[in-house]
């Protein structure tokens, strides 16, 4: 490389011709990753679709044991966290570091709230034996194979929950890096990519919520 380090901003890697190309490349990679995420959840949506079409009455009976209030609360919490995440990106675009940190902390807090509500929902179901496969011991649901509903419920909300947890770790990392002054309106790729990931997690929940809590 003939370039010396003083010729370009610290964040620009040598194999990119300029910051714009670096940013667009990162975004392309992120979208490819999100594509695989959609297909990962896609397999589980197919599982849901098949078993629902085979045992429609059982799905309708089983879904009534879910707490719609908790589900709605979590939906609103997650949508709000998506808003604060989008606003965090807007703040860093405008160079407002303190505001960015504040929005990231809010997003982290809302994600934590989501997990706490989820914990209470899971704990309740563990207590009643509304569990997947051969762990299922609940007797209050009529219809064939009610345990399949809970296999779908725990697999899909569980995988989603893991994604929320990973998102929380990423947001925590962003808070630290923002406080260290690593980001600027010229360079905020990490925040933007985490934002894309976080919105996808929200987007998947937007489908999980009606499929499990509402449709009956």
């Amino acid at each position, binding site marked *: 490389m003939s370039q010396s380090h003083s010729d370009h901003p610290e964040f620009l890697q040598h194999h990119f011709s300029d910051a714009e190309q670096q940013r667009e490349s990162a975004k392309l990679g992120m979208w490819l990753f999100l594509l695989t995420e959609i297909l990962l959840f896609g397999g589980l949506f197919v599982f849901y679709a098949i078993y629902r079409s085979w045992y429609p009455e059982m799905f309708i009976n089983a879904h009534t044991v879910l707490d719609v209030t908790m589900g709605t609360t979590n939906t609103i919490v997650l949508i709000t966290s998506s808003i604060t995440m989008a606003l965090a990106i807007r703040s860093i675009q405008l160079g407002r570091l303190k505001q960015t940190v504040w929005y990231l902390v809010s997003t982290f807090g809302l994600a934590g709230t989501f997990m706490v509500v989820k914990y209470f929902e899971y704990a309740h179901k563990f207590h009643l034996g509304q569990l997947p496969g051969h762990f299922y011991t609940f007797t209050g649901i009529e219809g064939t194979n009610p345990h399949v509903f809970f296999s779908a419920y725990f697999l899909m909300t569980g995988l989603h929950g893991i994604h929320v947890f990973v998102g929380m770790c990423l947001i925590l990392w962003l808070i630290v890096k923002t406080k260290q002054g690593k980001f600027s309106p010229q360079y905020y790729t990490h925040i933007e990519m985490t934002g894309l990931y976080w919105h996808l997690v929200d987007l998947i929940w937007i489908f999980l919520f*009606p499929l499990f809590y509402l449709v009956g």
Partner: protein
Amino acid sequence: MTENTHTNEPHVLPLSIYLGIGSILIFLTAGTVYAAGIDFGAYNLLIAMAIATIKASLVAMYFMHLKYDNKLYLLLFLSAIVFLAIFIVITMFDTLRRGDIYEIKSGAIRDAVIYDSLPADTTTHAIADSLSISTDTTDVVIDTTH
């Protein structure tokens, strides 16, 4: 990005877009919960999925900036949706129409503890009653072709 590709300045959306879209999303959440309380029969699933699709599109277009970014990202996103649709539709054709070729035995999955260890007068009975068959067996034949 738009015209300012080489200036390295980000394309900043006004605050009102984020707050407006956010309000619509929360309004639609309330709407879908309200709609779930009304019985539209076979349209229940369709209505819930339609509202979810509108919400998802708003998140993708505005929060994920697909409306403003390079359209390549939109193409990638839509290609994932197309493949997901193929995945679901073709699998459903198979699983729902398989009965046209040979008889399908659809029954209780015996892996579940409830089918082995429960007293006979609880769930197994309820299942049997709902399918109007004898309780001697949980090997239920369901016509999945309807």
